[in-house]
C-alpha cells in the first residue's frame, strides 16, 4: 500500500453510511491498519448528503479528509451523490460501486430542478472512472427485508473486490461483536448478496 488506501462512502442521511464506515474501520483496526474515518453529516437526519472518508494505512495516521482526486474506491448509496464525488475525489483509476436507485432531492420533487438521467450518470461514471459496478442494490435490499439492508449489501460488494484488504469474514467478525444475535443472519446474508451482485455484474 503506497501512502494510504482511500475509500469514500457517499449517500443520503438515513442510508446507514456512518455505520458502514465504522464497520470497515473496526475490521481494519482488527487487521492492524492505521485507520482514519472522517464523517461529514451535519444535518444528515434532515435529508442532506452524507459522506465518509475512510483511510487505511500500514504505517501512518492520515488526516480526516482525502485530498482531491485521490480516492481509490467509492461506494455510492445514491446515484446523484455518487456522481458528485467523481469530480472532486475520483480519478481515472478509481473503482466505483454505485447503487442505481435514486432518492430524489426535495427541489427535484418540487419541480424546481430535474434529476439527471440515470443512464447519463452511469455513462459519465463509466467514461471517467477506472471501473464501475452499477448495481440495483436497493431492489436486493427490499427482497432481504428492507432498504436499510442496502449498506450491508454494498459492504459485501466492496469486500469481494480484488484487491481489497478486508474480506467478508473480517466484516462478519465485527458484526458478531456488536449486532444482536437476531439481526446477524440477515446482515450476513446481505454481505453475501453484495458479493453475488458483483460476481453477476462481472459475468
Amino acid at each position: 500500500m503506497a501512502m494510504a488506501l482511500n475509500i469514500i462512502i457517499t449517500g443520503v442521511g438515513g442510508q446507514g453510511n456512518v455505520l458502514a464506515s465504522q464497520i470497515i474501520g473496526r475490521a481494519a483496526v482488527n487487521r492492524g491498519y492505521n485507520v482514519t474515518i472522517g464523517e461529514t453529516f451535519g444535518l444528515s437526519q434532515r435529508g442532506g448528503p452524507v459522506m465518509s472518508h475512510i483511510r487505511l494505512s500500514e504505517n501512518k495516521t492520515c488526516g480526516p479528509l482525502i485530498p482531491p482526486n485521490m480516492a481509490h474506491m467509492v461506494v455510492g448509496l445514491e446515484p446523484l451523490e455518487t456522481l458528485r464525488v467523481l469530480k472532486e475525489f475520483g480519478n481515472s483509476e478509481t473503482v466505483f460501486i454505485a447503487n442505481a436507485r435514486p432518492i430524489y432531492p426535495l427541489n427535484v420533487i418540487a419541480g424546481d430542478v430535474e434529476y439527471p438521467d440515470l443512464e447519463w450518470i452511469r455513462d459519465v461514471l463509466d467514461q471517467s472512472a477506472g471501473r464501475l459496478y452499477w448495481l440495483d442494490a436497493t431492489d436486493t435490499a427490499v427482497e432481504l427485508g428492507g432498504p436499510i439492508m442496502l449498506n450491508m449489501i454494498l459492504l459485501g460488494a466492496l469486500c469481494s473486490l480484488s484487491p481489497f484488504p478486508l474480506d467478508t469474514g473480517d466484516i462478519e467478525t465485527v458484526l458478531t461483536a456488536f449486532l444482536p444475535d437476531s439481526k446477524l443472519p440477515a446482515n450476513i446474508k446481505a454481505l453475501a448478496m453484495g458479493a453475488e451482485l458483483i460476481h453477476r455484474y462481472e459475468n
Partner: protein
Amino acid sequence: MRRAEKEKEEEGSEMISDREGGKEILLQGNEAIARGALEAGVAFCAGYPGNPSSEIIENLAKASQRLPIYVEWSVNEKVALEAATAASFAGCRAMACMKQNGVNVTSDFLTNLSLSGTKGGLVLVSCDDPGGISSTNEEDARWFARLACIPLLEPATPREALEMTRWAFVLSEAIENIVLLRSVSRLSHTRSNVLIRGLPEFDVKARFDPDIPFHTFPVVDKDRARHEKLNRAAHDFETSVFNSYDGPENPELLIISSGCAWSYARESVEILRLEERVGLLKMGTTWPLPQELLKRHLRQCDQILFVEEIDAFLEDNVKAFCADAGEETGTKVFMGRSSGHIPLCGELSPSILLQVLGEHFDQAWEQDRFQAHVNSLMPEDLPPRAFGFCPGCPHRGSYYAIKTALAWDNRDGFVSGDIGCYSLGLFPTGFNQVKSVHAMGSGLGLASGYGKLDLFGFDQPVITVCGDSTFFHAGLPGLINAKFNRADILLLILDNSATAMTGFQPHPGIDTTAMGQPTDPVDLESLCRSLGMPVEVADPYDINESARTIYGLLKQEGPRVLVMRRKCALVQGREGGFPYRMRVDPDACAGEECGCNRYCTRIFRCPGLIWNTLSKKAEIDSVICVGCGICADICPQGAIERTVVEEE
C-alpha cells in the same frame, strides 16, 4: 431474550468504559475526549447538546452505567459549567462540554470564574464548527481563552484529543484555573486508532472547604493572580509534547499550524514533495504562546504561513508577539487570512492547502486534467440536495398549519424562529414561514419586542416558534418578559418530546435523565399557565384543526401559548412506526390537468411523496414514506389515501 440482546449492543458501544486499557481501539474524536476525561478520573460531567459536541456527554452518560461518575444534560451551557464548577470547588475533577455557541452562553460566568480560580481539575470543551456545517455561525471559541485569560489546548487527532484531555485536568490543578480544550467538527467526528490506558479508581471524596471561598474580590488582585497563573501555563507549554516541528533546519517556508488543519498542511507538503523546503510547526498549546519555542522557530525562516481553523487566532497572536520580539526574530513576511493567502471564511481542506502551497512554490496540481475531463462530460452543475424535514416530521404539519392560518388572517403576519430542526422553517421545506433565526431563545425575545411595537403603528401578527428543549434552555426569560411588559405574543411550542436536532437527548420535559434515572418532567402547560397565560394544545398531524386553532389565537391579544405536540418522527419510527399505508389513487389524481399545478409535490415537499414524470401524476415513494398520513389532507381531489395497516 430482548434484554440479553440489548446488553450485547451496549457492550460494543461502550469500549470507552474499559477499565484495563493498554490497547488500540477505534474512537471518534468526541469519544476520545470522553475517554481522556475518564482516564483522568473525572467525577462530574455536564453539557448541553449541540453538534458537533453531543457525543462526549452521550458516551460519558453510557459510561456512568458502569463507572461511579455523575453525568448530566443541563438545562443550558451556563448551568452546565456552573454545575461542573461546583464539583471542582469541592475538589473533584469536572468537565463541561458544548458547541461554540454554548461558550457564549457560559461567558458571563466564565470570565468571572477565571478570576476566582478553581480547585479540582476543571476543563471546558468547545467543539467549534468551521463552515457552520450544523450551526448558525462559524464562531471561533478560542478567543474566550484570551478573553477569560485561561490556557487553550487544540488537539489535532483523536489520539491527541485523548492525551490532551487527560493532561488538561493536571494543568488545571497545577495553575488552579479552568482550561479550555478546543475541538472542531472534523476532529470531533473523525474516528481513528487510539491507544487507551487503564482507568483510575474513582475514589474521590467531595468536600467544600469553607475557609477557602471562591470569588472575584479584590478584582485587580485577582486579575493579577490570573495572569500569573497564565504565565505558569506558558512555562509548561515551552516543553510540551503537544508542540512539535517537522522539517529542515532552515526551510524556505515555515507553516505554523494547529488542530486538524495541521494534517491538511502535512499531507499537502508530502503530495507536492516539499519536505526539504517546508517546515511544519504543529502547535497544540495555543494560548498563552510558548514564546521561547516560537522564537527558536521564527529565527529559522522569514516566510511564515498560518494554517488554523476559522479565525486568525494564532496568526494575530504570533504577529503581535513578533512586534515585541522583532529584534530577536527579524523581519517576517506573514501569509494567512489577513494577507488573503488563506480564505477568510469557511472550513479549510487538503484541496485549499494544495492550492496555496502549489501557487507559492509554482507547482501545478496534476489532477487538473482529470477534473477538466469530467467537466467536459458534465458541463452543468448538479442539482443540490437541499435540507428538508424528514418524512413524517411533525414540523412540516406545524408550518403548514401556520402558513394556512397566516394566509386566512391576511395581515402580513410572520414567524420569529429559533434554534432546532424547526429552524428549517426558513426554507421551502417549512414553506419559508420563518423570517428570523439567531440564538437559543432569541425568537421569544424578538417576539416580545414586536409585541410592543403597536405604539409605532405596527399591526402585523407575529408567531414565535420554539422547540421544547430550546424553551427550557433560554426561551422562558423572553416569555416572562412578554408577560411582565404586557407584550402581545403568540408562542407556539413545537413539542416533539426530544432534542431532535442533535440526537434525542433528554431535557427537563422528559421523564428520564442522561444517566437513565427516572425523574419528574417539567410540565410545559402548567409552567406557562402558572405565568397566567392561556395555553392550548394542538396536534400538528391534524393540519386543518391546527390551522383553525392558530387562526383563532391570532385574533386574541396578550401573551398566549399553543403547544403543538407530536413525537419526533424518527423517535416514533424506532418505537413501532406509523399506523398508515399511503397511496395516491391514480384515477383520482388529475395530474397536470388538475389545475393545482402539482400542489402536493411543489408545495408540500415531503420526500415520500413524489411526481412520476412518465405518468405525470403524484405517487408515494414506498422506500421513503413512513405512513404518517398528513398529506391525505392536502390534495384538492382527495386522491391521497391513507389506510390503516393491519397488524400482521
